[in-house]
């Protein structure tokens, strides 16, 4: 059989509601409900996040200096952005600057983290199964094993080795790849030995080659396949004109670790920019009754429901957004790839949702180039990795460009340094309104007359997968039984009764 497999047999569904549960190749718990009208056309879809844990509340009373090691458990897929947003929040809370070597170590470990995260998503979770096996491939083979079968064990091994390198670099620098521990206010707990630097430098070279290889994979497997490209640039499918937000340095160049957050409007003009001190002026969250996850939006535009355009506060984050907001990528290979990206996609900003994947591959290249720069910097082995704070902690806000978008941690503590207030605005949740938007549009475009297929339903899931959501991250609320309210509507959709407990 030939790959990618893009079509499969349709069947008619008898029900008015199609439920996809659980949503898969997704980090965390979610489900999709598609509602059909009498003609079998899509009325609406809901992408529900069905889980909560409770960090904002149960972190109260915990010592602020422990937060980098507690909040990592928000997410085991992207523990580094949490660890570092938290550590940066501590820098601010204790009013202490990290030493230059500490900053470099944080960023180097972070580049390795980006590499691991993007490699896993591209090859194992999304692009591999959906575009290389094909979105209509048998669900039983639409996974990492199926990808290895299609591309062959040699490429499979290459990918696994590159990812293992990225993990090992994180472990050397941060203590553990998953759930790093080294962040302290004013620096990190340990310097990098010359021996370990050499080890990392060797792996960084290989990762640089792997970055080039990945861009080649995008070329060979995706861009050379006209059917795939036609779907990617089809404005009736995965396309939304929205605001974008991402981190840039003072020259408006891409940076993952430090800088300001820049927001552009759907036409590409700068709309706003903020740092940790004033993130509340730009960011707000709306609550819906049908999901445990809140809907973040731009406060200055407002929440106006699930629509795109300049009048909707829906803003997108993560790789596509970051390429859209940055004037430049400060490393040569990633910049060259970005030039090609916007050329093929017809200019900047690019609004094609599936282009998130391509942007992710370009960021992988940038992370490899930046890692090499940092590890070649002689200062990285300096033993001065900590400025020990002298002040009492108060309020700390840390912002970082996470693999899945802009991440913000906001802490307030009491006189003893115990957390009193905590706010977490998490990357995947910022894209959550847009994921719903994308899914509604795709569902309406591909489901007609109650006819679906495995591949068609997977096209709906591809709408969220483009964003590489991680709902482990986003679901930081609660134990306990939810209050229940039942609204009963009559056929004219008038509320006739409310039952609550």
């Amino acid at each position, binding site marked *: 059989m030939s790959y990618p497999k893009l079509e499969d047999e349709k069947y008619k569904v008898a029900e008015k509601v199609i439920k996809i549960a659980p949503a898969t190749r997704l980090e965390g718990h979610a489900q999709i409900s598609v509602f059909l009208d009498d003609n079998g056309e899509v009325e609406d879809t809901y992408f529900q996040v069905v889980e909560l844990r409770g960090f904002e509340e149960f972190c109260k009373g915990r010592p602020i200096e422990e937060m980098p090691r507690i909040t990592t458990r928000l997410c085991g897929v992207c523990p580094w952005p949490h660890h570092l947003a938290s550590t940066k929040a501590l820098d601010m809370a204790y009013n202490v600057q990290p030493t230059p070597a500490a900053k470099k170590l944080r960023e180097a470990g972070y580049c390795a983290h980006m590499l691991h995260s993007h490699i896993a998503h591209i090859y194992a979770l999304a692009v591999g199964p959906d575009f290389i096996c094909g979105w209509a491939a048998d669900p039983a083979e*639409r996974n990492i094993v199926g990808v290895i079968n299609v591309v062959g064990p040699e490429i499979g091994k290459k990918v696994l080795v590159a990812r293992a390198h990225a993990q090992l670099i994180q472990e050397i620098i941060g203590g553990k790849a998953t759930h790093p521990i080294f962040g302290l206010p004013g620096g990190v707990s340990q310097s990098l030995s010359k021996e370990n630097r050499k080890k990392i430098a060797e792996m960084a070279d290989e990762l640089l080659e792997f970055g080039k290889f990945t861009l080649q994979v995008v070329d060979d497997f995706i861009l050379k396949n006209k059917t795939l490209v036609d779907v990617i640039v089809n404005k009736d499918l995965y396309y939304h004109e929205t605001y974008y937000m991402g981190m840039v340095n003072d020259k408006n160049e891409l940076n993952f670790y430090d800088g300001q957050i820049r927001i552009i409007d759907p036409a590409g003009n700068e709309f706003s920019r903020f740092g940790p001190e004033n993130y509340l002026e730009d960011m707000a969250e709306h609550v819906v009754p049908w999901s445990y996850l809140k809907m973040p939006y731009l406060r200055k535009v407002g929440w106006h429901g699930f629509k795109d355009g300049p009048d909707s506060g829906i803003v997108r984050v993560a790789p596509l957004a970051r390429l859209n907001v940055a004037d430049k990528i400060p490393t040569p290979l990633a910049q060259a790839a970005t030039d090609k990206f916007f050329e093929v996609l017809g200019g900047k900003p690019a609004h094609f949702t599936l282009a998130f994947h391509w942007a992710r591959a370009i960021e992988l290249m940038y992370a490899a180039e930046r890692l090499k720069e940092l590890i070649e910097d002689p200062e990285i082995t300096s033993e001065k990795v900590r400025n020990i704070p002298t002040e009492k902690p108060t309020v700390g806000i840390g912002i970082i460009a996470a693999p899945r978008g802009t991440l913000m941690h906001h802490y307030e503590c009491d006189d003893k340094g115990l957390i009193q207030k905590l706010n977490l605005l998490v990357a995947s949740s910022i894209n959550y309104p847009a994921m719903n938007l994308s899914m509604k549009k795709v569902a309406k475009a591909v489901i007609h007359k109650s006819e679906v297929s495995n591949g068609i339903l997977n096209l709906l899931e591809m709408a969220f997968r483009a964003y590489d959501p991680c709902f482990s991250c986003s679901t930081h609320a609660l134990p306990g039984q939810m209050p229940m309210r039942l609204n009963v509507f009559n056929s004219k959709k008038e509320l006739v009764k409310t039952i609550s407990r």
Partner: protein
Amino acid sequence: MPEKIKLALAQGATCSGCDIAILDLDVELLKLFEVADLTFAPLATDIKFKDVEAMADGEITICLYHGAVRNSENEHIARLLRKKSKIMVAYGICAAYGGIPGLANVTSKKKILDTVYEDTATTVNPDHTRPQTHHITEAGHELELPELFEEVKTLDDVVDVDYVICACPPTREMNVKLLNVILDFVNGKAPLPPKGVILASERTLCDECPREKPEKVVIEEIKSVDYTKLDPEKCFLEQGIICFGPATRAGCDAKCIVVNMPCRGCMGPTAAVLDHGGSMLSALASIIKVSGAETEIPEEEIAKFMEKLKDPLGTLYRFTLPKSLLKRVVKE
């Protein structure tokens, strides 16, 4: 070539780091896939609930369940996968002991709801909306959400568990050992190990700590990591830094200690210990520096000493509250 076994990776209230830990087998994954088909694994495969429901009981050979049990869906998955799997593994500290999400057992439902949906800095909620277990939209669309439990539970609170693998997350070395157990079983070389904790040492982290062991540890004053210059060679407890080494199961390769940070107990206690926090507290009590004879520590001295332990509950039970003697502590 023997028939392939079926492997499932099920998830409860989790950070998904345990899924990543499996991915960290890297090239060894190819060996795993030679003998095992990955079935239900929401992070990696497209097998849905209905596919699992259609399986015969016991059709899945081994299920690794990670995450705590804190809502009706987590419990449903645990029960469903228990029924369909021959072997159920509580994989990682959350499934085994509650983990960090288990810290939610220090607070009340109401406080959490108010915090998350009202009081957080970015939340704008003039209508006081809360997620509903059952909701009908204005368009008449009926939507359901899982019901959250009063407290965070561990996997063995809801189903029978065959093996436990601790750690947060399990290390690559632990997974390679697990893989070898699976390989030996599939190839008929060895039966499966008896029910109980596997792949874990019964020693404590102190027994395997790479730092120089002092003859006798005495703590004069508890210090916190933020203001203390951390000596990379000396025992953390000797430096006054709380380190969970004496109370915590070994087997993590002391990864935190290696980057000059103290242990916080993510491996949980050894099998001999009922209560992780209690065990650490008893270790602490034995090393406090006292002015009088050891049998008569003045109460004020104990109080003064313990005052420096700013968050006793969250420190002593960082990873194990739901499986402790306390289980849940709610101050109203």
